[in-house]
């Protein structure tokens, strides 16, 4: 893999006619939000000020942002653990995200859980659980219910290429296909499942080829090109909304950090990271926007500064907050 990649080209951003410039700026803003949240929490983690794990999603921003941006507010989204971008797209306030991630007083999860595991039913966002694959059947069931109720919504769900090897991936996707559920599944193939390279996870060329075995469309795309992700998701969502059933999209990217911040990822070959650094979804999109006169370098820097200041402020703030009180432990086991 490392050899193949070292000599590989950096693909150009393939602009889609589905987006206007205002939307493009929004995409960048969400990607910046995600990237900066990671940068700030990584810093806090190093300073020993974080709580819980930091699953950075650096390298994934184009996937969660480009796909979530396609959805309507009524559509539902079931992100995985590197989809912070999608949370921003759905309009979850930074403070809410921070409260939940850090399990602080005021978190929707009352301290029972943390990271991105929360649900925001108003925004139709349902977080993952740790068990990889578990949310696929659940997201399919959500889509099935919409179908039964005659509501024209679509459910967008994500899984890592590692999680795609779970039994629940198979059962969920097959069930969706049989019922023609309005369901789109994006595999975020970031080359590793924790320390395990794709060669030890599966043996097919493209994971989107799994779609053939479910009788649904499948496509493998550049997951570092937010426009490409938007476009592929757009057609899959349209298809689902039209009652034509689910689709599978494999978006290729690279996990640019360790599995979580405790992991220095020394098992990842240097050249691989070098290559993918050049394919950074955020930087390339910034360049694209500048080259096309949509934003200036200065405007982007300004945006960055604002988001960074806000992120630092919110995280610092939230870190000052106490954890929820002990009594919360005894509530809501049953409703």
């Amino acid at each position, binding site marked *: 893999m490392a050899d193949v990649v070292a000599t590989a080209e950096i693909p150009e951003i393939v602009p889609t006619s589905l987006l206007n410039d205002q939307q493009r700026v929004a995409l960048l803003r969400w990607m910046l939000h995600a990237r900066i949240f990671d940068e700030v929490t990584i810093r806090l983690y190093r300073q020993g000020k974080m709580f819980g794990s930091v699953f950075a999603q650096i390298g994934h921003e184009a996937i969660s942002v480009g796909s979530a941006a396609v959805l309507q507010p009524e559509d*539902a989204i079931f992100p995985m653990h590197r989809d912070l971008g999608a949370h921003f797209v759905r309009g979850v306030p930074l403070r809410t995200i921070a409260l939940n991630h850090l399990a602080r007083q005021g978190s*929707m*999860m*009352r301290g*029972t*859980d943390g990271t991105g*595991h*929360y*649900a925001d*039913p108003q925004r139709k966002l*349902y977080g993952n*659980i740790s*068990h990889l694959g*578990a*949310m*696929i*059947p*659940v*997201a*399919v*069931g*959500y*889509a*099935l*219910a*919409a179908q*039964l*109720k005659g509501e024209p919504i679509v459910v967008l769900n994500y899984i890592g290429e590692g999680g795609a090897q779970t*039994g*629940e991936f*198979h*059962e*969920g996707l*097959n*069930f969706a296909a*049989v*019922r023609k559920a309005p369901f789109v599944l994006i595999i975020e193939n970031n080359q590793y499942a924790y320390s395990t390279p794709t060669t030890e996870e599966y043996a097919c060329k493209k994971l989107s080829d799994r779609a053939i075995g479910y009788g649904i469309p499948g496509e493998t795309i550049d997951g570092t090109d937010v426009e490409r992700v938007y476009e592929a998701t757009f057609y899959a969502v349209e298809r689902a909304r039209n009652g034509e059933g689910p689709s599978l999209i494999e978006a290729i990217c690279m996990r640019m950090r360790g599995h979580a911040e405790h992991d220095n990822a020394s098992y990842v070959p240097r050249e691989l990271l070098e290559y993918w650094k050049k394919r950074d979804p955020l930087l390339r999109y910034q360049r694209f926007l500048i080259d096309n006169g949509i934003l200036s370098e200065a405007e982007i820097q300004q945006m960055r500064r604002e988001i960074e200041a806000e992120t630092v402020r919110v995280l610092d703030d939230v870190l000052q907050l106490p954890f929820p009180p002990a009594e919360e432990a005894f509530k*809501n*086991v*049953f*409703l």
Partner: protein
Amino acid sequence: MPTMTLLQAISDALRYEMRRDERVFLLGEDIAEFGGAFKVTKGFVEEFGKQRVINTPISEAAIIGGAIGAALNGLIPVAEMQFMDFITNGFNQLVNVAATTAYRWGLPVPIVVRGPVGGGMSAGPFHSRSAEAWFAHTPGLKVVFPAFPADAKGLLIAAIRDPNPVLFFEHKGLYRKIREDVPEGEHVVPLGTARIVRPGADLSIIAYGRMVHIALEVAARLEDEGASVEVVDIRTLVPFDEATVFDSVKRTNRVVITHEATLTAGFGAEIAARIADKAFEYLDAPIRRVAAFDAPVPMAPPLEQAMLPSAEKLLDTCRQVLEY
């Protein structure tokens, strides 16, 4: 009041709830045109259509996970396991997704997972397991195990209306064997209420499911021997009606607990432990349990009868406790 078998009462509850509330729908293997392996949903697809009576692939995780997702989207799914044994293939969905959603998200997951359990018909190790204790040990899941048709109807309706995930165990040996008057229409038995199915003064048998009937048989035989035996049907394991059980023990001072599941770490242990803690001073004899021998449920009748708890074993144990 019409007379119904346990199976008919369960069908009746499902039909009643589906008529009453169009959010209720069913999913499972072979439940549509075929009406399910035990015919619980026979005629349902004709009345409610294939949208509300969904045949699924052989994918228990998709069935249970799908039910959870549909519940999150406002519906009330009742999932059938063709045999409850197959719930092991959707175990993760139950214990990790369904059981934690209220706690973590504050959102209701009003699903029911129901199906046949239990031994006694030479169905072998993979169609006879009584698995309720796994779920009783999983906070966030309710566990119901009726013994009588009227209770089955009332408890199933309560389970469907409950905002929490409920496991509903139906002993297949009782499906067509037990018959009684069942209230027509609305009939709710609240979860978490035990019932004294036979009052007595000298000994309490605490039971659920098929063992309630065996306990009644044993109580009748002991009456001939001059002992007055009370039989308590706990009906739901979670929530557990401590008050009724403790009250019984406090009156009789002697207790035998019985279930068809295997002994070790079965739910009978929990009942015994609670009594040994909170009703300790009322006890005049050791707490005994009569349960299946710790083994898979074997198929050949002599083995199966030997492995499962029997009236004889229960009778014997009751005599010992009475004589203690």
